[in-house]
């Protein structure tokens, strides 16, 4: 801590905001000054670099790599030339044969925009005009591990802070009783916690996790519940805090002790608030039905999406929902993708409907996608291999243009060729929508200023309203 910062810390509230959890990350914006730290609520509303279009993000991570040519990227030539040889070189280090395999599913156009969406996603059809579909994504990493880390941290090989950590560092939370960054059922492998970790950013910006590997599990936060009556615990807390205050009195002044004292108050508030937010049974039956809660096929993912909406509503800044590593159809494309779509289509459509009806879609950015797409060429007899060279992701709300299909892959849906959007560009764009300039959100570590987009990234201004 610098001398100046230490002197500042004599104002304990300010110090608390800097060192306590819940991602009071306005330090990132220290240079922007005018920090509106409202002493009463303890919430810092930092000044953005430019007006924000989105206040929060819900990232729907399709772990394993969904196939663009079977969901959003309609390619008539692929359909016509089924079984023929790919007329150009396939990417290196893959197991697929250079033989084209058509999509087993029909595509049709939807909404006023006439967006192409396959028959696998009938619920999403209704939201065709809300979607901003980027068909020209490309990324780094031919294997899951690299590509998953690339998507989450902007690096396919080095340990770097995750997108959510950067955002909670940059913007903090909207609700002091809840963490800024929550990851629901995050992947356990392929980088695991690195994908929601802070690397060298302060630990307080890491995600609070619920469940893992695509499964909601108990749906609770670790150590949130004491098993004691809250009243009994309050009595215990009173004793604790009085001992701590004795300690502080002997120390006369100590920012760390003050920070610890405040952390118990925060925890106590979180214990009161979070269980309420986590309890999806509080939702009306109609809403539960909309998502597909209680329906065996959709129940797991429905609960996760519904939880995400409750978190968003309660002020969590960055929420990620992940499927398990289920999209990786090296074989059995038909069965695999049909099952995955059956399980996620309705909950995702419901999330959009629900956000929209609450007026929240306007300032909530929803992002959908996997770590890469899949090859239009066949692996084995009925599978597709990894394809970071070209794939589809979509965004909705949060200042993105609905009903827009942006960019193109080649005629077979293999390589992104037109208006290419790299993963770095996607990250830059997400930050942009949140009012952050991606090349100004930096953190100094080991002698360097690091940023999410490293030395890359361009905002895709054309997809912003």
């Amino acid at each position, binding site marked *: 801590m610098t*001398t100046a910062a*230490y*002197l500042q810390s004599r104002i304990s509230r300010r110090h608390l905001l800097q060192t306590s*959890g819940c991602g009071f990350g306005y330090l990132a914006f220290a240079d922007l000054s005018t920090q509106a730290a409202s002493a009463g609520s303890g919430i810092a509303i930092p000044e953005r670099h430019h007006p924000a279009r989105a206040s929060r993000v819900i990232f729907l991570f399709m772990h394993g790599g969904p196939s663009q040519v079977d969901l959003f990227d309609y390619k008539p030539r692929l359909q016509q030339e089924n079984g023929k040889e790919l007329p*150009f*070189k396939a990417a290196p*280090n893959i197991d697929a044969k250079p033989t084209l395999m058509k999509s087993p599913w029909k595509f049709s156009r939807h909404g006023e925009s006439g967006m192409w969406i396959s028959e696998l996603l009938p619920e999403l059809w209704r939201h065709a005009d809300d979607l901003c579909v980027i068909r020209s994504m490309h990324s780094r990493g031919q*294997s*899951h*591990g690299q590509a998953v880390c690339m998507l989450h941290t902007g690096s*396919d*090989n080095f340990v770097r802070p995750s997108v959510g950590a950067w955002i909670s560092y940059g913007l903090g939370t909207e609700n002091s009783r809840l963490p800024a960054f929550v990851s629901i059922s995050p992947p*356990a*492998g*392929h*980088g*695991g916690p*690195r994908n929601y970790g802070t*690397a060298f950013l302060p*630990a*307080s910006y890491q995600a609070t996790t619920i469940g*893992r*590997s695509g499964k909601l*599990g108990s749906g609770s936060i670790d*150590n949130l*519940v*004491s098993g004691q009556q809250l009243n009994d*615990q309050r009595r*215990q*807390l009173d*004793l604790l805090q009085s*001992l701590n205050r*004795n*300690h502080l009195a002997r*120390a*006369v002044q100590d920012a*760390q*002790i003050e*920070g*610890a004292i405040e*952390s*118990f108050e925060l*925890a106590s508030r*979180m214990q009161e608030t979070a269980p309420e937010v986590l309890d999806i049974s509080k939702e009306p039956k109609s809403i539960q039905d909309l998502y597909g809660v209680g329906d065996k096929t959709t129940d797991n993912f429905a609960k996760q999406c519904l939880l995400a909406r409750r978190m968003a509503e309660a002020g969590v800044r960055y929420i990620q929902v992940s499927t*398990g*590593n289920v999209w990786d159809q090296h074989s059995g494309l038909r069965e695999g993708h049909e099952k995955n779509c059956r399980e996620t289509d309705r909950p995702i459509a419901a999330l959009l409907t629900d956000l929209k009806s609450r007026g929240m879609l306007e300032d909530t950015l929803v992002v959908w996608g996997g770590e890469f797409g899949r090859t239009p060429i066949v692996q084995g007899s009925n599978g597709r291999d990894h394809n970071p060279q070209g794939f589809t992701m979509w965004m909705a709300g949060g200042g993105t243009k609905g009903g827009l299909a942006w960019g193109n892959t080649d005629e077979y849906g293999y*390589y992104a*060729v*037109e*208006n290419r959007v790299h993963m770095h560009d996607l990250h830059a764009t997400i930050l942009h929508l949140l009012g952050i300039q991606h*090349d100004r959100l930096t953190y100094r570590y*080991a*002698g*360097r*200023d*690091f940023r999410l987009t490293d*030395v890359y*990234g*361009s*905002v895709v201004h054309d997809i912003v309203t």
Partner: protein
Amino acid sequence: MQLRILLTAVALLSACAGGVTADEHLTQTATEDSVRPTADELAFFESRIRPLLVRHCYSCHSAESKEIKGGLSLHNRAGWMTGGESGPAIVPGQPEESLLISAVKYESYKMPPQGKLPDADIETLTQWIKMGAPDPRTEPSSVPQSPAGIDIEKGRQFWAFQPPVAHAPPTVENQAWPRDAIDNFILERLERHQLQPAGDADRLTWLRRITFDLTGLAASITEQDTFLADSSDTAREKVVDRLLASSQFGVHWGRHWLDVARYADSNGSDFNATYYNAWRYRNYVVDSFNQDRPYDQFVREQLAGDLLPAASEEQKEQQLTATTFLMIGAKMLSERNKEKLVMDVVDEQIDTVGRAFMGMTLGCARCHDHKFDPIPTADYYALAGIFRSTVVLEGESQAYVSTWVETPLPVPAELAEAIKQHQLKKEQLTAELAALKKELAAATEQKATSGQADPAADALKENVKKKEAELREHDKSAPQPPKVMAAREAPTIGDCEIFVRGEVSHRGPVVNRGFLQVVSNGSAHLQQKNESGRRELAEWIARPDHPLTARVMVNRIWQNLLGEGLVRSVDNFGHLGELPSHGELLDTLAADFVDSGFSVKSIVRRIALSRTYAMSTYFDEQAFTKDPDNRLLWRAHRKRVPAESLRDAMLQVSGSLDLTAAESPVANLGALAVDNSKQASSGQSANSSRRSLYLPIVRNELPAFLVVFDFADPDIVTGRRPETNVPAQAMFLMNNPFVKEQAKRTAERLLAESRAETEQDSETADLQLAEMVMRVVVGRVPTETERKQLTDYVQSVCQDDASRRSQAWSEVIQVLFASTEFRMLD
């Protein structure tokens, strides 16, 4: 040398971060809105055009060139569109209008100057421009603006690159205060600033502090009593020597090193393979600190233990084990481009070696000359050649997924016998199974002919199944011959090319293997070109006059005892690191460290017995105003108790701590420590009552207790742990079953002891218990007020129900576990 000069001139614009502004991106986008290449065009460019440009043009017209000739860069699309001094080089679609074509035809300029291109190549270029010159190279320009060189000679003037020399202790006014020369250095600076050192911490505070600092454990009541009763002048020395001699010293100090060595029991990263044998290194580190292995030797063994002479088999094993240091970084094992993977591993090693031993951030120089320190890219690749000539990865566990080297260790006779017996038993079982199967086949055949059900055949079928299961079980219980994760020399040894911008696809010139020029007096190159160079690198880092090695280590020791390093940026002694607060003291300690034969224990002992260490954390308004960061050490820093010690101390006071050393904590895990399908978390189920050092450090699945309390991230070198105050810690202390369990056990233990000793009424007993509890948990005697606070609490819980007494005390103890006093060292 010429090569290095050339390379230092290559300063790339795209810095590690922040180099590209939004404005540049905007220009970028504006020049790029023309047609994107199609896949065919892309293929054409990649296979035909790029190689031509790289081979014939890049040396003068790209980021790689010393200066861009004629201002023309052919490094990317924007380069040739803007063109150089003679205007745009290419007019897409119009070869006859393009300067590039007339130049290669030797019609306007004569390019390349070394000799005219073959006609076929000129035709290819013409064809490409006809196509519209599709060019995918749209990455931010890396054209050097003002080639800045690195002046190594000037770089050597920086304090950290000057060899440390001992200084005479300065004279001080208050001559009664210093106990050691250390104190003179501290006091002299304080006096110069008209500051007074804080008084000594009271005896129990000092005892708690030193016991945690040296062993990571709490001082027991007996130890407290012994120390309080010892009024001799050597009372403190006795304590320090007792603690230094304790095997728990190595456990605690070994852990400090493991933070730096980014130790883990699994690979983490993309493919979290289990490191079954990493524990051997962990125990080697613990032993090294317990045996006070000279630090220079410790350094040499970790870098090149496999190459050092050994007097015995045991020493050989130990040295081999030390090289696990090079192996345990997180690696992207499933990276399909293996060349890239190898260079990423090399990078991880260079970065770790740089920061761990020298406090230098070398990783920056992978892509360009270090921006702030005199480390040219050539130095990086001089080191890279050494590590690329060392094998870390070997084989694949499944398609595309690499594995690492495991070297067999000598098999002890007992184990050899066990393996033999196991093999014999296996053969026997296999034979029995074959016999049963034969019988079954016969019975089945008979059944087929007779057409009648045969109960004997069913029984046989059952027996075959049983035997098969038995065999499977037997296989699982096979005794494993010991192996160690050890580095070894590569079959092909050689220098490394520079990879431009760190990309394996961009080869530059080859660099001689060697060390950092800025800290080398004479040649920084290897003497023995037929070895990888690790042995020489180890000698070079561990040599007594290396300006960084001793300084960095004594600074770490100082930090671990005093709370802050003399150089606070313990892993960065470069220009972006901090300057030392007491440079002469640091240098004197470093010189003394070398003179002591690199004895860690003797430096620890000296600092621990200094007056400086013994100061209280007393707050002084005036001093605070002058020096709020306590850089001058006018008082002791209040330190955090590290995660392991919090956990260990809870186990210790509850009477559950098991001090025995352990072997592999991950023996029960599969080849993949964590995978995507597992719902249970392996690391969190760690339910050991051994010291936390022995918990499984499974990357991506660290023990929850440790993570919550700021454990060092094993993915990166951590010389100084972060210190956070987050609600997750508060929730853990209030709600976690482990904490509650230890509190309960402590209460039961203390209640049982007090019952055994006293016959008093419960009120008196409670007052006595309050004292005992405070002394056991926070290591001091409570005040009257505190005694009353605790007993009031107990009485309010019990009210009329005396059976709740134990519960009440366990709640009190949990409160103490959660208290700032327990979690900090005053």
